[in-house]
C-alpha cells in the first residue's frame, strides 16, 4: 500500500491534483469594450446579520462582459454580496450600483430587474417543485411579459440546449440535482439577461452534469458576448477557468484579478494554494496537506447482499452487493439521483429493503433493532439537526439519547468541540451558521457516541476547500486511529481519490468497485474524474450524452490530459460541426432597454395571471387539498346543518312530587305531554335532585309541594318550584320559557274546567315569527353555515401561500423579477377565489336541494356577496401568511383569527348588536357579519341589492384594506 503515498490523488494538493491547464485569459470571446464601465460598482457596503459582518466596508468594481468568480470559505459573505447585487436583499449601508444605476432606487431596480437573472444557492431553490420543467420555464417567461409564441420558441431552444427536451413534462421535484440546476439556468436565461448571477450553481451536482452545465454557460456566452456572469463557487478548479476572480474573506476583498494573477500573488501553482496563501495567518487554520496512512484490513463490518428497493413500479436500487472492512474508507459515487441515498438508508436500517439483506457487524439490520443503531453514526445529505437549538443543546440532546453518562458526555462534548473547532459557536443556533460549520456539527453529532460505523451522505457538499480538508483530516483520523469504518458519498473527485475503495453507481446499480487507482487505470485515464465520466456515459446508453458531444472538448471522454470546465482552448462552440449553434439558445445579444421598458407596465395583468396560472396548476397537482376543500365543506355543511340546532327539544327533567295527589299528577302529566320535555325517573328527595342535577342527568326538576291538591282546591295558590340547570344559560332560558307556557295553559284549562268559563286576558300578544314561521332550525342555520365555511376554508387555503414560499425559498422570484407585490398577492389569490366560488355553488345547491331551504331573494345579490366575501376571506389568509414567519404560526394564527370572530362575534348565535366591548367592534368590521346578513337576507327574507346595500359596503371596503395591508407587510426585498 505504500505506493499510494506517491499518488498525488491521495496525498496531494487538497483540490487540484496537479496544476490546471495553462492560464486561460478568456474562455468566451471577450467583448471589445474592455474599457466599458463596470457592470457592478460597490462602494462602502456594509451588511450585518446579528454578530456576523457579511460585508465590511466593501468597495469593488466588477468589469462588464466577463465571467467573474467569487471564491472564499463559507460564511464570508459571498451569497450576501450576490443577493445585494441582484436586488434581492435590502441594502443596509453603502452604495450598490448595477448596470449604471443605484440599487437603492426603487425605480432603477424596477428598470434593471428584467436585465438581471439570479439563481440562488441550493438545488432548485427558486423552482416550483410540483410544476413540470416546461411549466417552470413558462412561468418565468410570463413574468417577463413574453408572448405565447415567443415563450414556446425560447423554451424549445433552451430545452434543446440543456438536453432537457425529453424531460419537459417531468415535475421539478423528480429531477436529479444536475437537471435541477440546468432547469434553474433555463429559468434564469428565458429573458436574455445582461447580468447573470449564479450562486454556487454546481454544488452537490455530479461531475458529468457539472461538465455539461459549464459547457452550456460557455455556449450561451458565445451567443451573448455582452453578458456579464457573476458566480460564487466552492470548486477552485472551476474558478481556474473564469476571466476574473474576487477572493473573499470575512466580508472583505482579499484580492482581485485573473486566475494567473491570483496564483502569482499567492506564489503558488494552484488557485487553491494561492488562496490559502492569501489568507491572513490566523485564518489559515494551520492548514497542511492531508496525509493518509495505509489501511490494515480488518473483519467485514458492512455487508449488502442483493439489496433492492422498489417504490411502486420504480426500482430505485437493484442488486447491490458490497463488503466493507473495519477501518476502511469506502467511497460511494454516482450521478445525482442514482440511488446512493436510498442505499445508505437501507444500510442504516431507515428503509426496509424490498429484497436482499443488509448486515451490520454480522447481524441483520431491521428497523426495530435499537441495539445496532447505537453502533452507527449517520449524517444525511440535508442538514437534519434542530436549527432552533444551539450547537451545545444539539450535542447535549444526542448525548442523552445515546445515554452517555453525564460526566462522560460533558468531557466528550468538550473534546469534540475542540477537535471540530466548534468552541466559538457553541451557543449559536445552527440556522445562523454557514454550511461548512453546520456540516462539522453534523459530523460531531454523528461520532458523538463513538460508533463503529459512520455513514456519511455527501458530507462536504457546499463546504469550502479549507473546511473540506479539515473534515477529511477528521475522517482519516477516525478511520485510522479509532478503527471506524466509513461509508461516504461525494461529488468531489479528489475526495473520492482519498478513499480506500470506491463503488461507482448508476441508475440503481453498481457499475464497478475497486481502488481509485485501479478504476482509473482500467479506463486508461489519468484522472479519476475522467474515468468516472467514462463509466457513466457508457452506462447511460450507447449514444453519449448529446450535450457532451457538443460541449467544449468533447474528446475529454477519451481522457485528455486535463479538463478545466469552461475550457478556453475549445470554446466557443464550434459552430461549424455542431447541429445547432449555441446562439439559438441565446438569441441575438440585445441591450435593448427600450424593449424591456416597454414590456414593463407598472401593473401588468399578464404577470398577475401568470402567478394565478401557476398557483392553479400547483393546486391541481395536489388532489388531496382540492378534495379536502370541496368535499370537506360539503360534509361539514351536512354535519353542521343538521347538528347545530336552536330548537331545544327532549330536555331531560324529573318530578319531585311531595303531594302525590290526583291534582299533582294531572299537573305533571301536562308537562310530560310537551314535545320539549322528556321525563326521567321521578326524584325521591332533595338530595337525589342535587345529585342527579350535578351529574348532568337533568336539565330541569319540578317540585310539587306537599298539600298541593288540597291548597289548589281551597284556592290557596300553592307554589310549584322549578329547578333549572344553569350551566348552559341558553338551555335554561328556553326551558324556563317552555315550562312557563305549559303552566299558563294548564291554569287556563283548569279554570275552564272548574266552570268559571274562559277567562279573558287583559291584553293579548300575537307573536308573528317572520321569515321562518315554524321556527325551523334548519331554515335559519343553513344560510349561516355557508358564510362560516366560506371563511374557514378559503382563509386556510391561502394561509400558507406566502409563508411557505418564504420557507422554501421561491419568494426570491418575487424579489428578483419585475413582478410587483400586488401582482403577486392578487395573482395568488385568484385561483382560490375561483375555487371558493365553486365551493359556494356546491353548498348553495346542497342547501336548496337536500336541505330544502327555500330561497326567496335575489340570487344575483347572494352570488355577488359571496364573491366579495370570499375575496375578503382569502385576503385574510394571505394577511396571516405575510404576518408570520413559520408555517405553524400561520396555521395557528389563521385558525384563531377565523374561528373565534366568525363563531362568536359575527352574529351566528347572538346578533352583533347585542354584543359588547371588543367583541362588538370585531363583529362590526368582520366580513362574516355582513355576509351573514346577506345570506340570511336573500335566503329567508326575499331581499335584493337595494335592501342589503348596507352589508355590501363593508365587504367592498374590507378587500382593498386587507390586500394593501398584506402588500405593505410583504416587502420586495429580503432583509
Amino acid at each position: 500500500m505504500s505506493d499510494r503515498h506517491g499518488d498525488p490523488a491521495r496525498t496531494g494538493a487538497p483540490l487540484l491534483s496537479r496544476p490546471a491547464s495553462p492560464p486561460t485569459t478568456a474562455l468566451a470571446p471577450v467583448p471589445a469594450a474592455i474599457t466599458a464601465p463596470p457592470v457592478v460598482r460597490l462602494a462602502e457596503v456594509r451588511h450585518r446579520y446579528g454578530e456576523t459582518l457579511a460585508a465590511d466596508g466593501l468597495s469593488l468594481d466588477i468589469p462588464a462582459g466577463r465571467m467573474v468568480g467569487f471564491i472564499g470559505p463559507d460564511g464570508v459573505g459571498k451569497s450576501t454580496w450576490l443577493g445585494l447585487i441582484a436586488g434581492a436583499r435590502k441594502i443596509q449601508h453603502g452604495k450598490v450600483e448595477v448596470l449604471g444605476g443605484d440599487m437603492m432606487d426603487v425605480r432603477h431596480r424596477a428598470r434593471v430587474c428584467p436585465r438581471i437573472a439570479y439563481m440562488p444557492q441550493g438545488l432548485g431553490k427558486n423552482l416550483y417543485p410540483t410544476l413540470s420543467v416546461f411549466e417552470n420555464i413558462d412561468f418565468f417567461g410570463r413574468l417577463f411579459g413574453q408572448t405565447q409564441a415567443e415563450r414556446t420558441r425560447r423554451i424549445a431552444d433552451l430545452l434543446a440546449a440543456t438536453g432537457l427536451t425529453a424531460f419537459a413534462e417531468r415535475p421539478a421535484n423528480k429531477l436529479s440535482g444536475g437537471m435541477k440546476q440546468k432547469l434553474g439556468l433555463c429559468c434564469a436565461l428565458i429573458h436574455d439577461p445582461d447580468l447573470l448571477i449564479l450562486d454556487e450553481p454546481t454544488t452537490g451536482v455530479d461531475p458529468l452534469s457539472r461538465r455539461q452545465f459549464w459547457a452550456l454557460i460557455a455556449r450561451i456566452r458565445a451567443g451573448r458576448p455582452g453578458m456579464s456572469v457573476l458566480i460564487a463557487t466552492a470548486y477552485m478548479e472551476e474558478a481556474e477557468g473564469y476571466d476574473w476572480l474576487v477572493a473573499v474573506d470575512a466580508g472583505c476583498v482579499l484580492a482581485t484579478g485573473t486566475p494567473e494573477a491570483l496564483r502569482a500573488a499567492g506564489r503558488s501553482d494552484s488557485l487553491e494554494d494561492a488562496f490559502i496563501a492569501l489568507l491572513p495567518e490566523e485564518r489559515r487554520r494551520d492548514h497542511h496537506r492531508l496525509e493518509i496512512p495505509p489501511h490494515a484490513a480488518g473483519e467485514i463490518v458492512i455487508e449488502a447482499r442483493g439489496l433492492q428497493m422498489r417504490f411502486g413500479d420504480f426500482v430505485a436500487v437493484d442488486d447491490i452487493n458490497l463488503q466493507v472492512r473495519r477501518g476502511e474508507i469506502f467511497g460511494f459515487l454516482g450521478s445525482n439521483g442514482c440511488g446512493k441515498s436510498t442505499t445508505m438508508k437501507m444500510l442504516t436500517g431507515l428503509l426496509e429493503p424490498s429484497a436482499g439483506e443488509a448486515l451490520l457487524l454480522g447481524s441483520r439490520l431491521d428497523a426495530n433493532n435499537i441495539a445496532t443503531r447505537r453502533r452507527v453514526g449517520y449524517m444525511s445529505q440535508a442538514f437534519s439537526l434542530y436549527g432552533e437549538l444551539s450547537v451545545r443543546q444539539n450535542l447535549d440532546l444526542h448525548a442523552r439519547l445515546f445515554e452517555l453518562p453525564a460526566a462522560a458526555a460533558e468531557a466528550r462534548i468538550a473534546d469534540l468541540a475542540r477537535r471540530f473547532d466548534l468552541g466559538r459557536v457553541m451557543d449559536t443556533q445552527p440556522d445562523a451558521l454557514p454550511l461548512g460549520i453546520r456540516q462539522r456539527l453534523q459530523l460531531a453529532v454523528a461520532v458523538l457516541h463513538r460508533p463503529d460505523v459512520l455513514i456519511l451522505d455527501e458530507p462536504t457538499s457546499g463546504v469550502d476547500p479549507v473546511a473540506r480538508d479539515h473534515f477529511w483530516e477528521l475522517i482519516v483520523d477516525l478511520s485510522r486511529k479509532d478503527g471506524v469504518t466509513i461509508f461516504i458519498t461525494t461529488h468531489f473527485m479528489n475526495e473520492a481519490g482519498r478513499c480506500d475503495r470506491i463503488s461507482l453507481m448508476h441508475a440503481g446499480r453498481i457499475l464497478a468497485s475497486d481502488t481509485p487507482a485501479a478504476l482509473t487505470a482500467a479506463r486508461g485515464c489519468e484522472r479519476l474524474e475522467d474515468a468516472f465520466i467514462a463509466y457513466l456515459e457508457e452506462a447511460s446508453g450507447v449514444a453519449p450524452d448529446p450535450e457532451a458531444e457538443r460541449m467544449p472538448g468533447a474528446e475529454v471522454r477519451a481522457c485528455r490530459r486535463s479538463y478545466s470546465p469552461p475550457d478556453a482552448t475549445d470554446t466557443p462552440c464550434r459552430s461549424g460541426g455542431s447541429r445547432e449553434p449555441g446562439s439559438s439558445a441565446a438569441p441575438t445579444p440585445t441591450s435593448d432597454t427600450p424593449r424591456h421598458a416597454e414590456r414593463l407596465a407598472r401593473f401588468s395583468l399578464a404577470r398577475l395571471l401568470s402567478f394565478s396560472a401557476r398557483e392553479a396548476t400547483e393546486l391541481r397537482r395536489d388532489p388531496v387539498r382540492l378534495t379536502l376543500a370541496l368535499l370537506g365543506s360539503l360534509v361539514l355543511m351536512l354535519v353542521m346543518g343538521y347538528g347545530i340546532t336552536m330548537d331545544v327539544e327532549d330536555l331531560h327533567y324529573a318530578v319531585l312530587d311531595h303531594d302525590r295527589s290526583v291534582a299533582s299528577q294531572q299537573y305533571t302529566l301536562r308537562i310530560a305531554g310537551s314535545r320539549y320535555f322528556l321525563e326521567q325517573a321521578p326524584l325521591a328527595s332533595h338530595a337525589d335532585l342535587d345529585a342527579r342535577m350535578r351529574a348532568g342527568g337533568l336539565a330541569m326538576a319540578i317540585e310539587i309541594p306537599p298539600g298541593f291538591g288540597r291548597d289548589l282546591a281551597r284556592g290557596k295558590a300553592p307554589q310549584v318550584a322549578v329547578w333549572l340547570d344553569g350551566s348552559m344559560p341558553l338551555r335554561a332560558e328556553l326551558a324556563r320559557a317552555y315550562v312557563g307556557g305549559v303552566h299558563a295553559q294548564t291554569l287556563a284549562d283548569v279554570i275552564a274546567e272548574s266552570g268559571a268559563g274562559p277567562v279573558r286576558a287583559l291584553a293579548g300578544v300575537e307573536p308573528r315569527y317572520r321569515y321562518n314561521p315554524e321556527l325551523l332550525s334548519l331554515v335559519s342555520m343553513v344560510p349561516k353555515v355557508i358564510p362560516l365555511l366560506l371563511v374557514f376554508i378559503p382563509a386556510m387555503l391561502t394561509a400558507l401561500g406566502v409563508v411557505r414560499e418564504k420557507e422554501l425559498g421561491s419568494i426570491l422570484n418575487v424579489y428578483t423579477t419585475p413582478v410587483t407585490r400586488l401582482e403577486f398577492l392578487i395573482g395568488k389569490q385568484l385561483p382560490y377565489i375561483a375555487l371558493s366560488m365553486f365551493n359556494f355553488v356546491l353548498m348553495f345547491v346542497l342547501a336548496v336541494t337536500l336541505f330544502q331551504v327555500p330561497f326567496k331573494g335575489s340570487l344575483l345579490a347572494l352570488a355577488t356577496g359571496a364573491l366579495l366575501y370570499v375575496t375578503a376571506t382569502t385576503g385574510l389568509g394571505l394577511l396571516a401568511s405575510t404576518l408570520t414567519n413559520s408555517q405553524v404560526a400561520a396555521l395557528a394564527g389563521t385558525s384563531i383569527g377565523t374561528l373565534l370572530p366568525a363563531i362568536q362575534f359575527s352574529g351566528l348565535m347572538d346578533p352583533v348588536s347585542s354584543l359588547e366591548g371588543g367583541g362588538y367592534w370585531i363583529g362590526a368590521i368582520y366580513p362574516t357579519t355582513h355576509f351573514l346578513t346577506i345570506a340570511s337576507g336573500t335566503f329567508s327574507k326575499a331581499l335584493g341589492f337595494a335592501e342589503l346595500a348596507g352589508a355590501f359596503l363593508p365587504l367592498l371596503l374590507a378587500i382593498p384594506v386587507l390586500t394593501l395591508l398584506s402588500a405593505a407587510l410583504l416587502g420586495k426585498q429580503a432583509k
Partner: protein
Amino acid sequence: MTHLRNTWHLGIKEFRSLARDMALMFLIVFMFSASIYADARAKPESLNRASIAVVDEDRSLLSGRIIAALQPPQFIPPVHVGLADMDRGMDAGLHTFVLDIPPDFQRDVLAGRSPALQLNVDATRQGQAQTGAGYIQSIISDEVRAFVQRVRAPAPQPVELVARAMFNPNLEASWFAAINAIINNVTLLGILLTGAALIREREHGTIEHLLVMPVSALEIMLSKIWSMGVVVLVASSFSLQVMVKGVLGIDVAGSALLFGAGTLLYLFAAASIGIYMGTIARSMPQFGLMSILVLLPLQILSGGVTPRESMPEAIQTLMALAPTTHYVSLAQAILFRGAGVDVVWPAFVMVTLIGAVFLALAHHRLRRTIGAMQG
C-alpha cells in the same frame, strides 16, 4: 426506563423549540388571556341588548309605560318607527323585534275587550327570537296588569310557578362563554401544536435523523404529546385561575385540580389526534385544511355551543366518538356543577380510551409513512 428518559429529553427539546418561535408563543398567551376575556365580555347575558322597534299607534299612557319598560340590559332602548318603515327595518336586520301597539289600545284594555298587540319577530335570529318574545310578553302583561290594578283588582293566579336556576342563579352567559372558550382553545392547540410539530420534523428531515438513533417512533410521539400537553395545561390553568376567577371575577364551583386532571387526559387524546393527522397529511397546507375540517365539528357539535340532547340521534352517536364531547361534559360537570370523581369518571375513561386508540393508529401510520416518505 430508557424509553422514559428518551421521551423526557426529546420533550425538553420541544420546549426549547417553542421558546424560540415568538409568534407562536404570543398566540398561545393571547389565546388564553385576551381572547378569553373578549369572548366572555362580549357574550351577552341570555337576552342582552336585543334591538326592538315600536310602532306606537295608540300614544296613550299605557303604551308609553310598555315602551319605557323595554329597557337595557335586555333591550336597546326602543326606536319609534312608522308602520311603513317596519318591514324595511326588519329586512335590513336592524330590528329583531317590532312591536305594534294598535290605536285605542288603552281604551280597549280598560273596557275589557282584550285587545291584541302584534309582535313581529325576526325568526332567523333564533336564539333571541324565542327568549325575547317570552320576555316581551311577560313585560307587557306585567305592565298591563299593573296599570289595570289601579282601576280594578285582577283575579288571583290559582298556582304560582317559581323558577330558580341552580349553579348559575342569574343565568350569566359570560360564565359559560369563558369556560367554553378555554375548552375550544385547548382543543385547537392540542391538535395543532403536536400535528404541526410532527410535520415540521418531517419537512426538515429531522425525524429521519432521530430514527437512525436508538429512539423509537413511540418515544418521538409521546415526547411531543407530553411536552405540548404541559404547555397547554399550564396555559389553561393560568387562564382558569387568573383570567376567569381573577380578572373576570367568575365563581368557579368545582375542583381546579380535578379539572386539570381531566384536561391532561383530554390533551393526550387531542394530541394523539393531531399526530394521527400529521401522519396522514403530506404537507403543511394539507394539514391546515384537515385541521379546520376536524376542529369545526369538534367545537360546534360537542355540546359546548348547543345542547347535545337536541341534536339528531346520528350526530349524537358520531360525536360520542370524539373526545371533545366527553371533555365538555366533564368540564361542565366539574366547573359549573361542582361534580366530583364519582360523577365524572366515565368521561375520564372515555377520553383516555379514545386517546389510546388514536395513539395506536398514529404509531402504526408513522412507521409506515416514514418509509414511504423516502421515495
